[in-house]
């Protein structure tokens, strides 16, 4: 079989195609948000959708996040599949009451009679030099709200697959889009059929034997880079990309940690009360006898997201990951 060289595509293009395919296949899929129509979204993810499907299917809303999500709840109640765009991570907060009080619990409070099949797309995370309120990592808030699925792609094909899966899901899904990976490229052919994986599966991005880096979204490429760098120091690191924070794939994660015996959780959001604490606890509970060192966390500092000129000191980079890996060894030797 010959490998056909495919045109590299960006994550942004994969997301656009996922929306377009979903809208073409199912007339109940509607896109709404600020600037998603004429402009195609500030990140151009919804580019061309209003022209192709009309403004009723891809709608510029008034500037009101609670209103956007609240009306999407009503649309979903009535059988549509809304996909809403929150323009930036920190601008989703006005919608939190709708999210927490209604979106996340509608199925539960109606004993399953009123599921809400809606997708909330949130560009998140730092590393793009954004001014204040444009770089938050809000995953812990979403994860702490029962009733939501929370997924985040790190690769171009996953961006497509996870968005399609989110739209197909009969439950509300928060799709956290790592905005600094929007323009990362991959040899993914936007014209070829692409796979849609069920939500909830992690994947081993790089196999290794001496320790596992557990990570997701924007930190996946950083961990892969760290794993390469660690080879020089004799470490053979495995990198697990969670893809889905809720539900959490204990199986893949624990299988990896049992093989390697050591683990570091890496993410951008603050460590205290952050996703890493939950992940470390789960791993410890399930793999205690296999662990040769405590599960460590490499996270952003516990600060309001810093101004762009200082963000490189905040974001977990290769060095900080390698330091943690080094501490795993220390723990092992002492």
């Amino acid at each position, binding site marked *: 079989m010959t490998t056909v060289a495919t045109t590299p595509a960006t994550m942004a293009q994969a997301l656009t195609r996922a929306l377009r395919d979903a809208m073409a296949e199912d007339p109940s899929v509607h896109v709404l948000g*600020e*600037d998603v*129509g004429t402009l195609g979204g500030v990140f151009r993810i919804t580019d061309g959708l209003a022209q192709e499907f009309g403004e009723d299917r891809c709608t510029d809303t008034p*500037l009101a*996040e609670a209103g956007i999500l609240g009306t999407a709840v009503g649309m979903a109640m009535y059988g549509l599949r809304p996909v809403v765009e929150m323009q930036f991570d920190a*601008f989703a*907060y006005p919608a939190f009451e709708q999210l927490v009080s209604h979106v996340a619990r509608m199925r539960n409070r109606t004993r399953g009679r009123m599921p809400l099949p809606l997708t909330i797309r949130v560009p998140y995370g730092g590393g793009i030099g954004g*001014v204040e309120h*444009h770089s938050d990592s809000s995953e812990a808030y979403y994860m702490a709200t029962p009733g939501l699925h929370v997924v985040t792609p790190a690769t171009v094909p996953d961006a497509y697959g996870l968005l399609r899966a989110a739209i197909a899901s009969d439950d509300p899904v928060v799709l956290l889009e790592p905005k600094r990976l929007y323009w990362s490229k991959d040899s993914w052919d936007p014209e070829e059929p692409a796979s849609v994986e069920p939500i909830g599966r992690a994947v081993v991005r790089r196999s290794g034997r001496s320790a596992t880096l557990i990570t997701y979204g924007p930190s996946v490429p950083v961990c892969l880079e760290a794993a390469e760098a660690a080879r020089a120091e004799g470490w053979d690191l495995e990198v697990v990309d969670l893809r889905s924070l809720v539900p959490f794939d204990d199986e893949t994660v624990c299988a990896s940690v049992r093989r390697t015996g050591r683990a570091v959780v890496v993410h951008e959001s603050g460590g205290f009360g952050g996703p890493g604490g939950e992940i470390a606890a789960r791993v410890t509970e399930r793999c205690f006898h296999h662990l040769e060192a405590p599960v460590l966390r490499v996270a952003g500092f516990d600060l309001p997201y810093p101004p762009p000129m*200082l963000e490189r000191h905040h974001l977990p980079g290769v060095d900080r990951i390698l330091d943690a890996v080094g501490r795993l060894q220390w723990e092992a030797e002492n």
Partner: protein
Amino acid sequence: MTVMEQRGAYQPTPPPAWQPRTDPAPLLPDAEPYRVLGTEEADRADPELLRRLYAELVRGRRYNAQATALTKQGRLAVYPSSTGQEACEVAAALVLQEQDWLFPSYRDTLAVVARGVDPVQALTLLRGDWHTGYDPYEHRVAPLSTPLATQLPHAVGLAHAARLKGDDVVALAMVGDGGTSEGDFHEALNFAAVWRAPVVFFVQNNGFAISVPLAKQTAAPSLAHKAVGYGMPGRLVDGNDAAAVHEVLADAVRHARGGGGPTLVEAITYRVEAHTNADDATRYRGDAEVEAWKKHDPVVLLEQELTRRGLLDDDCVAAARQDAETMAADLRERMNQDPALDPMDLFAHVYAEPTPQLLEQREQLRAELAAEAGAEPEERQR
């Protein structure tokens, strides 16, 4: 004994009789935006004020141009220009007394500067060295707010608190047309009206919220009409007419200061540049519209008026331009210097007393920086 018993039985007091406003007409805005320049009203306008406005407009226009140029040189991460809206920006700053407060939105750098904040400090947020570069108490200017409309309830709370303390303080809060759709806008107006808080809500309706035109933002006849439902007056003004904006805002400030409560002022203006330097405005609007608005330019309008009344000669124009050039040169020079940044500042202002966790993280960064500074070149490559 229960708490309720301790306190004595609950005695419902009958509510005061509800008195609807019998005549909402005084609250309604005029059908047409109020204008001064080019009308008979213009002759009554104070020459000193007009000259002052003119000088500030010229400065503001130059400031916008300079800041935009700084984005092209990579000295400023992003700049949302207010070119075309300078009359609103300048008037907002000039109607306030020293003890009053300004609550700006992210586009309102000019108003912040016209209020006296150092031009470089006003750009800190947009340059990216810190989130707010100035001390809000020094000139009584709240931090530039990026989340839309969230500063409006702050303005109401501050004005209310000042009044409770018996202080003579008015708050002027700025918001864009798009921001009026946010829930915070509604809640702020409602609180302000119920409390009769000394607040002026100032909407700069510049036609677009990024790409979304006003017609997709509201179905109301005007944004000023929204005032009526809250029980406060709504005023409509030509936002490119500096004299008119100043007069309407000054009236509203006086009304608030005198205990009359809040006013909603809508200025009809236009955003001549794109949303920010990063935006492509050709995607959502045509050149013809922009060109038409450029003919209704705030600087030109005022210049014509001043000339007609013989209040402006070539020397005055030259002086205003010279002053603006000096400001721009100073801005350019100081913005071309790298800001002094200390990464340790990351930890300096999270809490009054840093938590033990933050102290640990601070030491971690300190060690990283020391390693970075002392590292052998080969080691640093990692």
